């Protein structure tokens, strides 16, 4: 169960990562730090005297503003025309910037983060399941389900998909492509904020949290298939399960190396990802 819960969080982060990649070809190396930051926004809001629900709402709204709108306008837009590599470097700079800012202006030590749900254990038959894992799984499933419905079932969602698959044609059809790209950045910000609120009560809020989470999101995206939202979900779950099984039954020391082995295995046997379609190479 803990594996599925971890996987659910990885999946949330990976889905956001894939969405941004699909619409703007931006590989966000700061994705992990994006998960780290919202928890600190909430903590800061609580320090100002807000109650937990209000602080969560404020943190969520601020995340949308900073990690969605500002990230696109200030960081991605000016650089994207220079190509992929400068953007990779720039998001590396951004991750350093976010990490060090939190360390400098908030705290270098791990901070306790209030859980919305009390951490009790439920006994279902023989198995003991932590309530927190169940909540995480429920929220992750709800979020991903909602997103799938939004992308496939609403007009805006389908316009977003069209913009991702073929921006030129979408523009010809009168879809405001720029705004659709902005929407995917906002969806990404919402997903990472959600992941942040779910993961921080377990692992505590610390400025270095992003390092492992970011890598997990990349690997989940590649394992599942870079061009598929469903792929990212499967990749996230698989990585979460593998992570927990290896830590429990084999070697906790090499837990952080699981992504590498999964990554190389997938690249060697199925380079387009488990659910991905092969892309043609272009000149």
């Amino acid at each position: 169960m803990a594996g599925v819960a971890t996987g659910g969080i990885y999946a949330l982060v990976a889905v956001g990562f894939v969405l941004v990649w699909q619409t703007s070809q931006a590989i966000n190396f700061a994705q992990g730090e994006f998960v780290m930051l919202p928890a600190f926004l909430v903590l800061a809001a609580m320090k100002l005297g807000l109650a937990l629900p209000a602080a969560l709402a404020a943190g969520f709204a601020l995340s949308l503003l900073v990690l969605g709108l500002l990230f696109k306008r200030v960081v991605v837009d000016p650089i994207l025309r220079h190509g992929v590599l400068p953007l990779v470097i720039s998001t590396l700079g951004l991750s350093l910037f976010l990490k060090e800012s939190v360390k400098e202006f908030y705290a270098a030590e791990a901070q306790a983060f209030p859980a919305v749900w009390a951490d009790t254990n439920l006994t279902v038959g023989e198995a003991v399941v932590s309530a927190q894992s169940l909540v995480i799984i429920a929220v992750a499933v709800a979020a991903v389900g909602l997103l799938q419905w939004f992308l496939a079932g609403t007009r805006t969602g389908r316009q977003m998909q069209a913009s991702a698959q073929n921006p030129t044609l979408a523009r010809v059809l009168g879809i405001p492509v720029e705004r659709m790209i902005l929407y995917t950045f906002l969806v990404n910000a919402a997903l990472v904020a959600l992941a942040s609120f779910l993961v921080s009560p377990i692992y505590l809020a610390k400025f270095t949290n992003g390092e492992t989470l970011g890598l997990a999101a990349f690997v989940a995206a590649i394992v599942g298939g870079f061009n598929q939202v469903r792929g990212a979900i499967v990749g996230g779950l698989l990585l979460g399960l593998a992570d927990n099984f290896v830590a429990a039954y084999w070697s906790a020391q090499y837990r952080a190396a699981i992504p590498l082995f999964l990554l190389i295995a997938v690249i060697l046997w199925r380079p387009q990802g488990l659910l991905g379609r092969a892309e043609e190479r272009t000149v």
Partner: protein
Amino acid sequence: MKKILFAIVVCLLIGAPFALKPYGIYLLSLWAVMAIAAIGLNLTLGYAGQISLAQGSFVGIGAYAAALLTTQGWPLWSAFVLAALLSLAIGWLLGYPALRVQHHYLAFVTLSFATLVFLVLRNEEWLTKGVYGISGIPRPTLAGWSAKSPLAFYFFCLAILALVAAATWWLVRSPWGRAFTALRENAVRADSLGVDTRRYTLMAFAIGSALGGVAGVLYAPLVQFIEPTAFNLNLSLNLLLMVMVGGAGHFLGPFLGAAVSVLLPEWLRFSEGLYLILYGAAVMLLMAFCPSGLLGLAERAGRVFK
């Protein structure tokens, strides 16, 4: 103009350490070592266009090779040979799966490889002594001339840097180097012109990694105490930033980038934690306005003044 500037810099590099305190000499030596690793990465990234986030791990492999061999009484040159060959082979193996697919996959493979190397260095205590690190790494003696003092070791590093720079200068002008650039500019066209793209890409990656190993061999006797955290992902990212900040694909880029990255923190020490925040912001600004790095910026400024 360029020749005069070059002569001044060389004179400074040779003359300055006589006027510096040991810590200043240490920083200059560190600059030389980091410049070697950055030259290697520049070959991979700047000339062949392959992004690597594991250059710091190759420095780590080199450093541990040097530490383990020299504390057992082997001479340093044996460490150079071992580290270069080991990094070359690992670089080749690592690039092999990644190049089956699009080029940004190499970034993720190298990223997770950097994590793996760190874990091995930390966990395999029988070999690397884990978090306790390895201390008492001796400095080399060459044909009776001892490089024990900071000054002598600095000149040793400088000499190796000059050798590496000369070899790279020759390499990028050789048919191999031309093939590397052809790969970066347009891999498909290079392929159709008869360049074996896969082999050359792997070669660029492997040679770049080998230079990382060489830098590591110098790093170990320079600091004389190594432990795993020195070679975690941060070092790799730092080296990548050095190359990009200096100017990827420019021959002098790594020298400048290494100088910025090694010396600037010392000058900005008064700002403490703010330094890294400012550095992150500066990198973003540089990429937004001049993705070809400081040398690209200088070139542009030069054109304006003409």
